[in-house]
């Protein structure tokens, strides 16, 4: 959390995150560029420029695949949440790797011609009416533009400027980029390969992204089935745990996090004001709800970040009906204080005979 914009708010976890990411990317490229030429028993080597282009292109695909697997994996198993923490650095790095791939392609296949390279790229192949031989480069161009937009707008300044909902929607471009990369690869290199190892790896990667997203969606649907009525049911009184929340999905699609703090219930929006992170999956630390994604904090009673921070989220009214905790679907303006609702005192347990006593 910060009240001012600086390029990167470094902390030890971010250093570790980036170090691991860079180590993985460096290892991929080093193995592809310097180890595999020794493994390949070609009479004449692949042109270094083409070899480099392939290395960076394959690396970008693998990085995108990992990035898209992190989200659903974290929803299925909370232990993966730390991988979300600095994912934007992963995305920016992917954009640079993809840009390097494009540079090698442009400066090799489309160089040495009397035409401008970009003109050659866009005009050399115009067979748009066919699958085999389709100018697959356009999919690569589109994916690269998407990745560059995402990288350029990854900073918190853009989050604040665009507002989280718009920023979040803009960053769904990652899916368009991934589908475009899949088309780029499918209509390009996969059409030529006689060795199908890459094809299998490509399908495994894309398959993992699809399966994880479906699994996360099904899991979420089971957990937060929409409920009818003016007041939405959240959970039974006995299901609440001190310092943690239960999440309710309202009929309008919004999610509410109902927290138990110091024996009282309070409800706030499940969407963090920072990046729409799931507040209900966080916990109370130092009397403040803490977002599991980037640690933004809010007073659960008012939805306000502690001073000097200014973030605010909507709050909701809570009631207990019978044994059921319910929230009202009409959100209060962000930052509105709502008096917490105390949980009913547990009924005293019936007397039990003392050890050794007999009836």
């Amino acid at each position, binding site marked *: 959390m910060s009240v001012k914009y600086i390029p990167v708010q470094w902390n*030890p*976890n971010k250093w570790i995150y980036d170090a*691991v990411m860079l180590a*993985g990317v460096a*290892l*991929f*490229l*080093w*193995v*592809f*560029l310097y*180890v*595999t*030429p020794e*493994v*390949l028993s070609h*009479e*004449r*080597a*692949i*042109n270094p420029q*083409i*070899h480099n282009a*392939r290395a960076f292109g*394959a*690396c970008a695909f*693998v990085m995108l695949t990992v990035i898209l697997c992190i989200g659903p994996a974290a929803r299925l198993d*909370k*232990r*993966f949440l*730390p991988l979300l923490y600095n994912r934007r650095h992963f995305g920016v790095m992917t954009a640079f790797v993809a840009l390097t791939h494009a540079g090698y392609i442009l400066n090799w*296949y*489309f160089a*040495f*011609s*009397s*035409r401008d390279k970009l003109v*050659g*790229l866009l005009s*050399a*192949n115009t*067979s748009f009416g*066919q699958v*085999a*031989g389709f100018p697959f*480069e356009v999919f690569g161009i589109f994916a690269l533009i998407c990745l560059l937009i995402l990288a350029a707008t990854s900073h918190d300044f853009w989050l604040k400027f665009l507002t989280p909902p718009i920023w979040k929607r803009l960053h769904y471009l990652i899916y368009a980029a991934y589908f475009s990369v899949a088309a780029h690869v499918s209509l390009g*290199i996969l*059409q*030529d*390969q006689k060795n*199908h*190892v*890459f094809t299998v*790896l490509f399908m495994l990667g894309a398959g993992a992204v699809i399966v994880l997203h479906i699994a996360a969606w099904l899991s979420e649907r089971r957990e937060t089935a929409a409920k009818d009525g003016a007041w939405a049911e959240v959970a039974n009184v006995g299901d609440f*745990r001190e310092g943690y929340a239960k999440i309710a999905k309202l009929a309008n699609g919004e999610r509410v996090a109902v927290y138990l703090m110091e024996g009282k219930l309070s409800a706030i929006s499940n969407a963090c004001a920072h990046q729409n992170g799931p507040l209900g999956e966080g*916990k109370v*630390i130092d009397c403040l709800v*803490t977002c*599991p994604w980037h*640690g933004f904090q809010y007073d659960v009673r008012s939805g306000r970040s502690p001073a000097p921070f200014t973030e605010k989220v909507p709050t909701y009214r809570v009631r207990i009906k019978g044994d059921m905790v319910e929230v009202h679907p009409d959100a209060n303006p962000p930052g509105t204080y709502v008096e917490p609702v105390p949980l009913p005192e547990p009924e005293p347990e019936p007397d039990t005979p003392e050890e050794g006593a007999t009836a």
Partner: protein
Amino acid sequence: MSEKPFFVGYLPAPGPLRTFLLTVCILLIAGLGGAGLLMGAAQDDPGPGAFRFDYGRQTVTGVVELTPYPVIHVTEGNDRIKPGDSFLMTAGGKSGVDSRAEPLDGQLAQVSGVVLERGDLYMLQLRGGRNGLQAAEGDAPVITPEPQGRWKLAGEICDGKCLAGAMRPGRGLAHKACANLCLLGDVPPIFVSTQPVLGEEFLLVTGPDGTRLPREAYDYIAQFITAEGEITKRGDLLVWEIDVDTIEVTE
């Protein structure tokens, strides 16, 4: 109920989570390395084509013929290129030598450059200007075309220069845009036949009646096709005048 470890980015990772995260980090790094190895080692052999700088600069004399792509029929060779050989020529980059060859059509000329070689496919990338192609003294013998009839062939149209080794790999659908760009720059197109034709795997492919490869054929470049056309032997080079209307894409 047990306390689940909760990660906050700006705080030290909870102890129970550290082992899990360390395992994930190791698996991620190792997985990326493994993926690099598998993907890098899965690349196909680009074939034997290459620039033969090791042959040194080659300078020979012969008759220039426009098919319309410029061909030279060697009359005075050297240790490597013999009289009677016929081969195609290009300029540096994605350019042909048409403008330099047209004034010398049917005449004797001296050519000089570096060889591109892929099996029986031979091509000379000429030096710039008159150093690469200039008129030579002497009478030019007449090159008589030898019609070989109409053939239906199966194979792939490529740009001759990349195929011959300017790029490795220099054929296939992933290379199609580059091939198109070469052909637009007047690099000679080559048909790679799936079966030898009159003993040859590579044929210069042109349009009918001495025209360039029609633009309609560009959609089929780098695809496996069948097509019909007249074959003519010019020197020791086979020239296939493809009939674009007969092109069919095959599996």
